[in-house]
């Protein structure tokens, strides 16, 4: 499976990463090589094998539906690049 430039650019856009032409070229070769390694899995028969869902056999714990945390706006926005009145600021999304 080879990953061509058009596909790399499409994936990069899906991943929201801007790539220049040189980086895209490089990624195309590297992803092709890695997918080559991954092709080994074609040899494995997985008929009737369930995908792993829990690494240790366990059931997710339930807890009471109560408020355990909150009212920490300051703590939450303290590391943001641009903040106003407790809100994260981003470029205009709706015209």
């Amino acid at each position, binding site marked *: 499976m080879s990953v061509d430039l058009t*596909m*790399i650019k499409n*994936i990069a856009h899906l*991943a929201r990463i*801007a790539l220049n032409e040189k980086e895209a070229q490089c990624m195309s070769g*590297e992803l092709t090589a*890695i997918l080559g390694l991954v092709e080994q899995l074609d040899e*494995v028969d997985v008929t009737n094998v369930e*995908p792993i869902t829990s*690494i240790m056999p366990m059931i997710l714990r339930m807890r009471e539906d109560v408020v355990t945390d909150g009212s920490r706006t300051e703590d939450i926005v303290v590391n943001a690049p641009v903040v106003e009145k407790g809100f994260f600021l981003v470029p205009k999304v709706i015209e």
Partner: protein
Amino acid sequence: MNDVTALTIAEARERLRRREITAVELTDIYLAEIDKANAKINAYVSITGDQARHMAAKSDVLLAKGKERPLEGIPLGIKDLFATYDVHTQACSRILDGFRPNYESTVTANLWADGAVLLGKLNMDEFAMGSSNETSFYGPVINPWRRKGSATALVPGGSSGGSAAAVAAHLCAGATATDTGGSIRQPAAFTGTVGIKPTYGRCSRWGVIAFASSLDQAGPIARDVRDCAILLKSMASFDIKDSTSVDLPVPDYEAVLGKSVKGMKIGIPKEYQIDDMPKEIARLWSRGSECLKEAGAQIIDISMPHTKYALAAYYIVAPAEASSNLARYDGVRYGLRVSGKDIIEMYENTRSLGFGHEVKRRILIGTYVLSAGYYNAYYLKAQKVRTLIKRDFDQVFEQGIDAILTPVTPSAAFRIGDESLTQDPVAMYLNDIFTVTVNMAGLPGLSIPAGLSTEGLPLGLQLIGYPFGEEILFQLGHVMEKACGTFSPKKWW
């Protein structure tokens, strides 16, 4: 290195309790050593001298009252992946530029509650993605070990390269680390230190910056098996804030050291005997099994047929989970922001400048294998193969095997900037060939130094246990350590 920094945690603990040294003195000696060595080793990305002295002074008060806690006054280094309150926490990435959390990871909170002292944050591969510590935004860590008669700079392994190098160079008494595909065990092997990746769920992942959530696990790197046991006891806990944390009591790992391993069954998996294994690795491995045999253990040949597929499955699962986990770095809530003409361009520019090449590559692989039309062929298939890998281990342990012995790495530490590895991602990924299986199955794995290569570099062996079988690993590791000795680099820094 000097006499005081050469002390193990167990030895320093004794001296502190006998009041032969104060915690502040011990911390100051370490800080002075870091000050002298860090420009050459690059193990620390942030040194917290004032905070360290403050914590040590509090330890001295408790020591004076005879109310010391298990790690009272022990100076530790913390991998930059752990959130530490108001202290540099960036996973050694530019995208978390300036990030200082106002919360503390559960693992580090456990260490401070037991009296440990924070010396600073340790270098690592960016977002723990790498096997050489060369992907760090802060530059590579230099291995304190050099080849005989050579001054060539070698990698300390990765991703916990700063942790391993700091422990080996005596720039901390012990360190925290994390392991997603070998990131504790491989650097431990490259630096002659001891590291354990505990069972998945043993240490809380809360406050540990996520790479691949179903594989990530925190653990210690230390000078010897006893120190590793001491640190793991403090790091491990049940934590309701991590839904995969396991509610089991934490044993006193130190208590098993010195117990006989007579009659234990050690499995030697034939699938780890890869074709191009260097002779010295093969020799080390058979010496390791000899030494366990001499101690009364039984050596048994075993087979785990799906081993060879673990690396391929790992390079689907880990990037897939990473692409999802790293979606949060978008220039809005924390860290770096690079502007653009609209919000999409802002995201794309921020992530382009903020992430390094290796991280971008893994996000792209992950995005690809999860994208519409490919999910079943890649991710679902890999998760099925993972079931088979886990089943191989289950069957071996059901036969009564107590632990499995394998090499940690296919080679000793390599040169920084080695083009055959930096330009061929698959060659670099092969470093993890003996370690990823353990993460895929969620098992504990202990890496212990077992000898030196012909070039004078440390080589490690790995003991793999059944879920929550850490005590057996420490017990066996202690026996091997007694037979093989401990290893320290010659000081050149």
